[in-house]
């Protein structure tokens, strides 16, 4: 191919762009490293994350529903791959071919729409899978159960004001839900 680089030479500006952007990014990092003042203190050296000390791995385990959406995204991504050349060439066609093109893509998209409605029907895009369970039991015992007082880490600096214990909090299941809610809310006041 040594004689004819016609198609490749069109990419030289792209190459230059990539080179320049890499150089700028590198220059920023290296420049600030070289030129910036460095006065480390103990506080600056600690990791900072919203006031919390970072504990554990940075890798989070995401719930499965995210994967489902990512998987479905890939499928529809491929659809776009087919749509793009179609959209670019559609206008240039004659009338007959336009109808043919249109029908072809219509069938393709219709079949994928069957998949889309299937996804909607199966509620595969819903974020909260336990929607109905929550609806059945609006105030779950976990939410209402008395919790230990929150520790702020400053307990030693002064007396902690505790909420007064209510005289009588019935055990869960001993009385009806409504009574229990009433008892607990009175305690909060």
């Amino acid at each position, binding site marked *: 191919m040594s004689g004819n680089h016609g*198609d*490749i030479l069109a990419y030289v500006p792209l190459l230059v762009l990539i080179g320049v952007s890499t150089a700028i990014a590198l220059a920023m990092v290296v420049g600030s490293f070289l030129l910036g003042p460095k006065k480390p203190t103990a506080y600056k050296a600690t990791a900072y994350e919203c006031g919390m000390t970072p504990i554990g791995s940075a890798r989070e385990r995401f719930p499965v529903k995210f994967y489902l959406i990512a998987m479905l995204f890939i499928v529809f991504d491929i659809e776009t791959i087919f749509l793009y050349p179609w959209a670019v060439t559609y206008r240039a066609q004659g009338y007959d071919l336009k109808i043919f093109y249109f029908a072809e893509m219509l069938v393709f998209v219709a079949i994928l729409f*069957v998949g889309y409605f299937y996804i909607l029907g199966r509620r595969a895009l819903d974020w909260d899978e336990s929607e109905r369970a929550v609806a059945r039991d609006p105030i779950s015992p976990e939410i209402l159960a008395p919790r230990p007082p929150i520790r702020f880490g400053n307990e030693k600096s002064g007396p902690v004001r505790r909420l007064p214990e209510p005289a009588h909090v019935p055990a869960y299941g001993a009385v009806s839900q409504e009574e229990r809610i009433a008892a607990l809310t009175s305690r909060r006041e």
Partner: protein
Amino acid sequence: MLILFWILALTCVGASIAMVVTQNPVRSALYLVITFLCVAVFYVMLSAQFLAAVQIIVYAGAIMVLFLFVIMLLNLGAPQALRERGTLQPFFAAVLGTAFVVMLLLSNSLVALSKVRPAAPPEVYVPLGTVEGIGKNLFDPKQPWILPFEITSILLLVAIVGAVIMAKRRIQDHTP
């Protein structure tokens, strides 16, 4: 050009070998990304620009991100689960040997291709790889791509159904 080819080819093969050799699946995935990117550049060098873009969007973008997601998911659940045991399977050597024989055979026979049929000139193949070139041919009723195109949508539909069945925790029960 030849130098570029050699650099890329070495990177590509090196990254793929590193992908197989490394024991950490996350690193494997990242090496695979390098391989995919090299292949994308090869597509550009072969004047298949549209495919190069698609390669980056679909492979290096979507598919690899999904791979990494899944690795992360499994990693945190059971940190030991993903460690490779590092044992070579007994037939590894045999496979390697035969594979190399096949490769040598291939490369010997491949050299003859240009003698059998000379390569097409650039003015023939350059317009084929652009978006217009792909679109004009892919949807042309006189060419045999219509049926594969339509049944690809069926395949994607099956994939949608499969992903939902496999990955969704709770599908409504049909039994009372």
